[in-house]
Each structure stands twice: as structure tokens, then as C-alpha cells.
């Protein structure tokens, strides 16, 4: 059971980070061990080698725009990313993140409130987001209960397995 509270170190990205950047088409058929090495490499080559388990991504508008490829969310999860916080998220990325069990939150003002390396504390249930380093607190919409339930189960396939057992 996953907690609704997230804490982590921030990697910050700008607007319109696309699925072509999160999961380049050239590696579409490669296993996740290969795919995760190329995450965001065209915008920040230091990210994939440097990211550590529990780190989070903070981004601007329209994060995850582009294709339906779930590998965009899966790759981030495979790198140990604990959550994605953005000014806005593409609908598909948001669905896919929830489906693979990667917490996400849409939070106005987050892009300018955080710098690379800052530390974040966020409550998915209340929508409270804190920059631990500068003390600025933001309030976003909380994640709907339907989505938190899927996250808590560990993703939609876990939900399906649980349903099969019942």
C-alpha cells in the first residue's frame, strides 16, 4: 500500500516535454532496461544516468504530450522516479502514469517554485505541495479517489489481478 505523502529531490523540466523525448520511438521495441537509459536524453543527458530512486520530476505545461505510449510513464518509474508534478499534464500521460502506478499531480505555480535539486513534499490526498528548501507551499487539486485507489493497488493490472482473485 502506497502512502499519499511523497518526498524527494527535484529534477526540473520546461514545457511540452513530449513522449518522443520520454520514450524515443527508436527504442520502442527495446526492453525497459534499455529504454530507461534514453529518457529525456535530448533535453537533459544527465538525467537518466543521474536520477536516483525517490527523485521526482517537476515540469511546466503539457508534460507528456504526444503519443499514447505508456513506456513514457513506465520508463520514469523504472528509473525510480517517485512522482511527476507539472503545471499541466497531457491526458494520456496522466492515465498511463496512474495505470502503471506512477503518482502524478497537476499543480499551478510549481514550475517557477522549484529549481533543480530542490526538495519537495507533497500530499496526493490533499493536494498540498511544499518546497522544503524555500518554504513555499502550493495548493493543487487533490488526485481523484478513483486514481488514488489504482495507485494504491500498484497500477491497473494489479487491480485486474485482484478482481480475478475475488
Amino acid at each position, binding site marked *: 500500500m502506497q502512502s499519499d505523502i511523497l518526498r524527494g529531490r527535484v529534477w526540473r523540466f520546461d514545457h511540452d516535454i513530449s513522449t518522443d523525448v520520454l520514450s524515443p520511438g527508436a527504442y520502442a*521495441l527495446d526492453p525497459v532496461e534499455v529504454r530507461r537509459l534514453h529518457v529525456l536524453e535530448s533535453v537533459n543527458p544527465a538525467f537518466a544516468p543521474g536520477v536516483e530512486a525517490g527523485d521526482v520530476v517537476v515540469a511546466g505545461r503539457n508534460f507528456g504530450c*504526444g503519443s499514447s*505510449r505508456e513506456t513514457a510513464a513506465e520508463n520514469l518509474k523504472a528509473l525510480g522516479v517517485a512522482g511527476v508534478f507539472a503545471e499541466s499534464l497531457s*491526458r494520456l500521460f496522466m492515465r498511463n502514469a496512474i495505470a502503471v502506478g506512477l503518482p502524478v499531480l497537476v499543480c499551478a505555480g510549481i514550475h517557477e517554485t522549484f529549481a533543480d535539486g530542490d526538495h519537495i513534499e507533497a500530499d496526493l490526498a490533499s493536494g498540498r505541495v511544499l518546497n522544503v528548501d524555500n518554504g513555499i507551499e502550493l495548493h493543487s487539486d487533490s488526485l481523484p479517489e478513483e486514481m488514488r485507489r489504482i495507485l494504491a493497488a500498484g497500477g491497473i*493490472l494489479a487491480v485486474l489481478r485482484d478482481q*480475478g482473485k475475488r
Partner: protein
Amino acid sequence: MGVTLAERILARAAGQEQVAAGDFVVADIDLALIHDIFAARVFDLLTEVGVDGLFDPDKTVVVIDHLVPAPTVEAAAVHHRIREHVSRLGITAFYDAGEGICHQLLPERGHVRPGMLIVGTDSHTTTYGALGAAGTGIGTSEMVYALATGRLWFRVPETIRFELTGDLLPAVSWKDVILYLAGRFGADGAQYRAMEFAGPAVANCDMSSRLTVANMALEMGAKFGLFAADEVTDAYLRDRGGTGCEPFTPDPDASYEAIHEISLSDLAPQVALPNEVDRVVPVEDIEGVTIDQAFLGSCTNGRIEDLQAAAAVLNGHRIAQGVRLLVAPASRDVLQEAMKTGVLESLVDAGASILAPGCGPCFGGHGGLLGPGERCIGTHNRNFIGRMGSPEAEIYLASPATVAASALAGRIADPRRLEVVGAE
């Protein structure tokens, strides 16, 4: 209170009297589409979670279109696995390599009807909104869930209505309209929203153009890009041997988040600049930028009408020295039609290379990738960094006419000024 098209479809699919924007519903899926990038993974996962049959094999369509013909040994092996799964699961609606692009095939072969709720493992599943169907993309895990249970959760979206008026000028197409809208309202201008395209201009918009517009609604973040079903829809369905349809419309007193009234009368051909779909300018602002490749195809603009529009511009001339013109018809039917009508001959005579019907270059998969520093103008739907190969390549998006004019000139050119022909 009346309902929007999106609300009408989701209420019906969820078995509820009425739903409103913001509601969460669990809805029955009318059609599920899976293509070759994800099909093997989806079917493997189904087995892994212990599901050995589909909720309804007749509501499942599988298309091999992205890696066609198989560019690598791995792709060939994946296709082989897909064929085994398809046969094991009893899926009859299976389109193998060479038949065409999923978003062309599903409407063309009569799978899509107004009012349906359709999910696909492809973002451009919004294309079916052209026929008044609520089509939207989902990921692989969600597809596994949908195939196993026949259901999926949805948030009922707010709707933005676009009231379009006026007649398009010659050499201006509906691709220019949707590029203009993306430029004006932004790549997230319809994030999570349904877009409804309406107004007098839409009555004159043929099905091919509606498919283009609904396809690219996704590039504004839309969940659905919807046209009410009308005489054009009815005729399209009948032409393909199906039964026609009744009008399928929103209520006049439906509640919209916004209504934009836009006149199309003065619209110029539009071009999206690298690397964002919403960096859009009129073609005259960017004329003269040299190109290495011109691409005509994709689920956005690979139909016979698009090939005809390009052939009309090429009009017996040869493309510029040093430019590659790649043409990928959206389906075998489109290719055959192009063959019968002489369009194919015009394209090849002009210097085009004809690719197998499929998605190859558009998503940077294979068959016409760009090298570092190269520039391409294409009729497809995305120009993100690295989309067609090298991250150091540049992609411009435009209509078939603008792409053809640019191929002739060797630089981005205005299709309204065809004296560019042979200028260099």
C-alpha cells in the same frame, strides 16, 4: 439542461440517463484498437494476469501498421507473435502489414459508427470523432484491462465548441484550419477537453477533411475531437457498403466551457515550425526555408484526396534537385484508387518514392528518417524533437498542397503562388 456529444456518448456507454462534465463513469467499450507497437505486449500481459479470453473478440481490431514492412528482425518476430495471438484469441478484424494505417482502416472498412465509444493504443484514436464516435487513446495496461473486462473508467470532459464559418480560399485546406487552431489555442488548448467542430463551414467539410481535423484535435490535448453525424457521415457510411446513419447531434442548449466563433474566409495556408505543433505561422512568413525531404502521408493526410491535392500542385513538374519526396498512402484502398485515377503516376513522374501503406517515417520508426541538420516538411501531425530520426533535424508541418509546392521549389513554398515551380 441539454448535453454535448461527449456527454451523450459517455452516458449511453455507462448505462446512465445523463452524465455531466466532471463526472467519473465506468463505461462499456464498443471497439478496442491495438496496433503492432503494443499488440504483442498487450496480449502477453493479458496472459500474465491470468486472462485467457477477450471480453468480445468481435469488438477488437488489430492492425500491423507501424513497422511495415518489418524493418528489423525484432519487428518481424513481434509481428509473428501478434499473428499467433490474433489466431489464438479468435480476433477476426485483423489487418496485416500492407493493408494500411489503423486510423484509415477503421473508418474505411466500416468499423466506426456515430455514437460509439472507441479506445485505441494510439493517441490519434481521436480520428473517429470525424464520424461522431468518441475515440480516444489509452496505454497498454489500460488496454489489457479493457480487453479483459470490456469496461474502463472515464472522466466526462468539458467541451469546447468551435463554430466555423466562411469558405476556404483555393489551395487552403482543413489541415490549415486545424494547424491554425493549434497555433491560436495552443498544444494544451483543449487539454482533457472534448472539441466539437460545428457551424456552416463544417457542413461543407468532406469526410477526409473531418478525419484530418479530428486526428489533430489530439495535438491540442483533446480527449475527443467530434463532428456531429450528418448527411456527409451518412453518405460516407453508405459509400462503404454500410447502412447509413441518422443525424447524431448535441442538444442546442448543451453546456459548453467555451464557444469560439471563427471565420475561415481569410485563412492562409499554415505551417507549424519546429519543434512544436502550436508554433504556427502563415506560409508567407516562412517561405524560402530550404528543405531536404518532403513527406506526404500519415493518418492525418494520407488519403486519396490528399494525394490528389499534391498531384494537382505537382502538375507534371519534377521536384527540385536534392529533395526527396516520400509518399505513404494511408491504405491499400487509397493506393489502388491512386493507381486507377492516375494520381500515382503523377506522383512518381514528379520524382516521388512510394512507400508501403503504413506509419514508418511519421513516428521516426523507419523508411525515410532524417539525419542531423536535415529539414523536412510533411503532412503528418507532429514535429517534436527527434520525431523523424535525428534530434538535430527540423520538421515543419503543412497541408498536402504546401508540401507538394515545397517539394517542387526545394524550399518552403506557398501553394497559392505556383510560379515557384521550376524557380530553382
